[in-house]
């Protein structure tokens, strides 16, 4: 239905990347992933809970024949922490892809772009496929791309805030200059937010809370699937120009009263 997305040589039919956190249950997460039609999900790297013997692994609920795992470095506040976490993620997941997060602030979870650049340069040097989570700063995005990022992932709004795309103009600028895919990561609250991101030209959208935190995560996952398709199609379809006044859609001639 829509064109495929290729990141670092890997092709995805779906342009909706989904998280695995905060679902009411593993069953609901699995159903939501199915409803979303996603082909890539993010996971976090955390210490094994040594006291919780026999806990079913998250991975049992992800059909890895259809869904690619993208580990993140969520919770890292320095470049060094993020690099260490990326190393662990690679070993745990047997892939060299990493959603790179270096957080600057606990309250906003905004990225520390200075440290993010340091970590990106290091991990690219080590051969990782780096997808950095950043903010909607076109200069930071360009520098990340110059550093070898396989995609840039500007936020639309704070993680989990559901505020929607706060600065569409910046995202447009980021997309216009980017030569790697642009994935809007964070801030989506409802379906129209995802459609807006795609209409701005984003190559994909990544979300977690908007689906997992909805009253009905599976229904919202379906909504997001359709919204991403809608936004992608509309982006390609060439929307009408905005006008301040009306333009009749029925003919002006042939009226019985004129």
């Amino acid at each position, binding site marked *: 239905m829509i064109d495929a997305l290729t990141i670092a040589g890997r092709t995805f039919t779906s342009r909706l990347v989904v*998280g695995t956190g905060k679902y009411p249950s593993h069953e609901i997460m699995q159903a939501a992933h199915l409803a979303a039609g996603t082909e890539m999900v993010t996971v976090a790297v955390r*210490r094994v809970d040594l006291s919780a*013997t026999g806990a079913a692994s*998250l991975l049992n609920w992800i059909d890895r024949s259809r869904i690619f795992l993208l580990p*993140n470095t969520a919770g890292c506040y320095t470049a060094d922490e993020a690099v260490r976490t990326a190393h*662990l993620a690679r070993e*745990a997941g047997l892939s060299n892809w990493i959603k790179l997060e270096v957080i600057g602030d606990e309250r906003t979870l905004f990225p520390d772009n200075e440290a993010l650049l340091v970590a990106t340069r290091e991990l690219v040097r080590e051969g990782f496929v780096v997808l950095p989570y950043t903010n909607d700063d076109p200069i930071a995005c360009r520098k990340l791309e110059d550093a070898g990022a396989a995609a840039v992932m500007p936020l639309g709004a704070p993680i989990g805030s559901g505020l929607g795309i706060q600065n569409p103009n910046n995202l447009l600028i980021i997309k216009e200059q980017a030569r790697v895919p642009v994935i809007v990561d964070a801030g989506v609250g409802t379906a129209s937010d995802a459609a807006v991101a795609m209409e701005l030209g984003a190559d994909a959208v990544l979300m977690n809370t908007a689906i997992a935190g909805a009253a009905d995560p599976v229904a919202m996952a379906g909504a997001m699937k359709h919204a991403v398709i809608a936004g992608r199609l509309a982006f390609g379809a060439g929307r009408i120009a905005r006008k301040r006044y009306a333009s009749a859609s029925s003919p002006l001639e042939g009226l019985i009263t004129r």
Partner: protein
Amino acid sequence: MDYLEVTDMHIILNGDRHDLAPGTSVKSLLDLLGLDARIVAVELNRKVVKRDLYATTPVPAEAEVEIVSFVGGG
């Protein structure tokens, strides 16, 4: 962690101090802990251990050991 033998050697495992028999390999440690090697990653003193070296890599005394796996995240 009472399922580990009492010994003179200690490690810091996921932030907590534990006893460990000298010469225990990473693989043995995972076995002791009942962990599936295919879904975890192991760091010894801030350096990741490649999976195919688990059997031949001993856990040194006083090592900081991190054993992680994937959990839900965004």
